């Protein structure tokens, strides 16, 4: 049974539905716990909606490539897009001590990813953003 999947997504928010179905299949194939699946769903969605919403300056269709692999108790996720350069790891952590109504909205997505994933790595390769995320799957 395939332990890895490749998904090609268009820059359209409705693709989040398809992504979620693919992730369910992947979790089933790799016998992942619901918590791991939740973490994958959330982290991938936050990255991809951000790319779809802010990554492209034209109205053209773009491909976002997702590669997910499960090796030796670790899930690795790679997300590649041809949008403008953006390193999510440089986004400031939101200050959770500021009252809700005064808190700036941005940065919530990356804050969630940092909490749900174990390791993050970004590189700009030519005209592509590549974000790698890792999650240990043998713990709860």
């Amino acid at each position, binding site marked *: 049974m395939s332990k890895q999947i490749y998904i090609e997504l268009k820059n359209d*928010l*409705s693709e*989040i*539905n398809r992504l*979620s179905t693919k992730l369910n299949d992947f979790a089933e194939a790799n016998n992942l716990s*619901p*918590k791991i699946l*939740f973490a994958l*769903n*959330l982290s991938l*969605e*936050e990255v991809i*909606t951000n790319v779809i919403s802010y990554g492209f300056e034209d109205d053209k269709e773009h491909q976002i490539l997702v590669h997910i692999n499960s090796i030796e108790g670790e899930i690795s996720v790679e997300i590649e897009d041809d949008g403008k350069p953006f390193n999510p790891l440089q986004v400031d952590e*939101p200050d*959770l001590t500021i009252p*809700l*109504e005064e*808190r700036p*909205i941005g940065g*919530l*997505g990356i*804050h*969630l990813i940092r*909490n*749900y994933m174990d390791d993050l790595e970004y590189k700009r390769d030519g005209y592509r953003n590549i974000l790698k995320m890792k999650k240990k799957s043998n713990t709860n």
Partner: protein
Amino acid sequence: MEITKEEINDALEIDIKGRIDAYWSDHLSRTITEVIHEGTYKIRLNLADATYISSDGILVLLKYQNQLDTLGGSLIITNVSEGVKKVLEISGFQSLLSVGETTEAIDFDKRASKNRIEFQNTIFEIFEYSKTNSLACSVIGSPEPLKSGKFTKKDSKLLTFPESTFAIGLGALGNNFEECSLRFGEFLAVAGSAAYLPTDGTNVPDYLIAKGTSIPEMNVLYCLLCDGAFSNMVRFDSKTHSSSLTLTDIVNTCLKIANSELAGIVMIAESAGLTGTYLRRSPIIQDPDSHPLEYPEIRDWLSFTYESSYNHCSCVVAGIAAKSEVQDLNPMLRSLGNSRYPIGHFHSTVFSFRPLIKGEIDLRTSVSTLFESESTLAVLHLLNDDRDIVGTGQSEFFRGACWVSPVSKIKLDRG
């Protein structure tokens, strides 16, 4: 995502099944916007079957919790799953879950109005204040000089409109007759607020709201003035999205509820198209041969709404209506629809839309909130357009609140 809604008194429970993600949160957002538009300010969001939430979903919850808080309502979030709860905690938004923890019981067990009637596609909810309450109606001045446009200084009176009154007629805001003479137009005064449409060409309604001990004053050429207390409040709402009620339907129901031949009615409602007219010139003129209400001069004197205007606006409507002829009120009462009766005379101030909270509401607060928060678009005398084929019929409304009371006394003050 699957969304189901259930009404509980004047509150609404929304059940969410599935994912509140970047794609579906937009769907949830539209649903809540619609519900608020229809006047529900108390919402309980049951997330028992919501398996997932992302930052976009959180922002929707945050947005509507703030909005409903501003409107004096609440968005209570219940039964969150462990997964969703953890996302909220990590985000630092666990306070989203604490809204309403103490008030929930009050919000959702509040007494329902016992009296509901259904008519065609509409539900009427009746709240009784007191069966013995009634209104005294004064006819001050006469509309007769309008036919020749010959109102003069002696027709003008300075009247005050305290909270217990409502009035409609021709008037203007100003210190004296001279200041007002080129501005007289349709006016409406309700529960301490008053608005009129100046006829000096500006075409923008002018208004006053009672503040502290000040009471609106207006120079009036003639008016119908009702003073007293309402016997009932009535809420009406269509069961389907698109259906609306005619002014006649509403008036007939109000007359029935007031249990009277003649009733005073004030209404705050969302319009589904208004038909009416307003003066373009102040009816104080010098030309003895002028006949403003005759063709073709009427065109220079009166503006009529084209098609039906002002769809989805908030309106404050006031006037009186009768099941049959009332001699003392002739000729002020006219057929409201295509049938001879009911007859009535209604003015409306039109505002940009503001949702009206469901359930029993206070007239003075609701009216002054509209004047303070929304722009006044027009003041109209509502009239039925009964021309064959091209006629647009009468004004219609989607939903609203009416205050009604029998008129027990008519005073004539022809001055």
